[in-house]
């Protein structure tokens, strides 16, 4: 009962904030709304019984990534977007048609999907996540991802500072 109330509150908060992210025109507000979305998703992860993923969601996305976004937005002093939605009329019509088609598709998928009745003995404790991540199944993929991230890091520094 409490879990359901919490879930619907968090889900509603996430959806409303997600609409705010794209619907209004001040980039700073969008960034803060995105933080709200990420925090509500983290709450949903916590309800699902995976506190580790909930916390990592906040540390990585709401904590690190969004701080960088805000940093750039504030440093560049991005102004509010003009009220002109942009694009010519045929372009806008095409966009509306595509959006409608996508909505129909999503609706069909959701209507046909068979949902599990609930999380059955699902428990993603820190220890379980670590055991899975470092088990032979995922170890190589995990390490390869780490190297990829390291390479991206070095690459971004090289691009930003050509005369190091």
């Amino acid at each position, binding site marked *: 009962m409490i879990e359901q109330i919490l879930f619907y509150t968090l889900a509603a908060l996430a959806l409303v904030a997600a609409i705010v992210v794209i619907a209004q025109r001040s980039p*700073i507000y969008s960034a*803060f709304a995105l*933080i709200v979305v990420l*925090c509500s998703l*983290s709450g949903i992860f916590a309800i699902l019984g995976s*506190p*580790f993923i*909930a*916390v*990592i969601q*906040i*540390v990585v996305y*709401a*904590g*690190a990534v969004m*701080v960088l976004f*805000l*940093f750039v937005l*504030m*440093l560049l002093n991005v102004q509010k977007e003009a009220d002109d939605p942009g694009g010519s009329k045929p372009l806008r019509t095409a966009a509306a048609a595509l959006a409608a088609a996508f909505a129909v598709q999503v609706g069909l998928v959701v209507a046909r999907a068979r949902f599990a009745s609930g999380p059955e003995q699902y428990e993603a*404790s*820190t220890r379980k996540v670590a055991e899975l991540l470092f088990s032979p199944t995922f170890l190589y993929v995990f390490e390869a991802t780490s190297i990829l991230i390291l390479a991206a890091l070095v690459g971004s520094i090289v691009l930003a500072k050509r005369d190091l």
Partner: protein
Amino acid sequence: MSPLIQELIEKALVVGIVTHGLLIVFSFCTLIERRVLAFMQFRLGPNRTGPQGILQPFADGIKLFFKEEFIPAGANKPLFVLAPAVAVATAFMSTAIVTYGGALTVPAFGFLPEWLQGRVIELQIADLEVGILYLFALSSLGVYGIVMAGWASNNKYALLGGLRSSAQMFSYELALGLSWVPVILVTSSFRLPDIVAGQAGWFWNWNCFVVFPAFLVYVVAGTAEANRTPFDLPEAETELVAGFHTEYSSMKFALLQMAEYVNMITISALGVNMFLGGWNTGLPFLPPTAAYGLVGFFTFAAKVAGFLFFFFWLRGTLPRFRYDQLMHFGWKVLVPVAAVFILVTAGVLAALA
């Protein structure tokens, strides 16, 4: 009464006592800090309001409460109002994970309800499985209060203060997080009660002796994370007026101050729990569970007071870093030291296993 209701009442009591206790500690911290600083600088400090200035925090509170609420004309009003709330909320939420002592046994006083008499209460609000990672998440959210305050003020000094603080806090958060890893490796648990229990016995079992370099990194990074001198660059008054809270007055200013002090108290309490043996006295012939568990609580409180005094002492002793020195120190000294020490700890543990 059903056990669920009893549990809820118990938790509500703990939350209420912790929150109000923190408010009291915060208000007297401001007084003690000013007096300690004054004595270090051969002054007297505030000693006029009540004996030895003991009522000064209340005078300050009343003054701030009755000051004019001022919002600058160009400020972004919703965010300007929201910023102190975010700062205070994240600061208080992060105190939920701290253990304030071992279990406390409620004495069998006649006026207490039957179920409460002799009940064992854990002095921690939330014993989460992810433990200190929760604190890491909240400290990264705490940056937003400051950034929001800096941006919404529509003042270039405030904006620069906010940007500086976001850069400083996420740089030092990295070192702070890395300094926890050796402790987690040694105790192989994220939970604070486990970490404290792992330091039982004589005081040389405390993690500050077992993983000394990590303790050093923690103290330095914690000082920076709490925006204390010598790392109080976000509000460097000689360059930035007052940094992110330049435009704040009245209670909103008080809330930002409160968030800062509560963060400092949390950093101290966490340092005590992780490195200084928590509520262990360090002398195994003294049972910490004696006298309803109050010995443990007062041991913890004394250690936290020592940690806080250390912060005041630093402020009276060290000059402020320059901003580039701060960044160099964080990224080129603290992070490598912490990272190498993690490897050393892991190596030693693997060799011993």
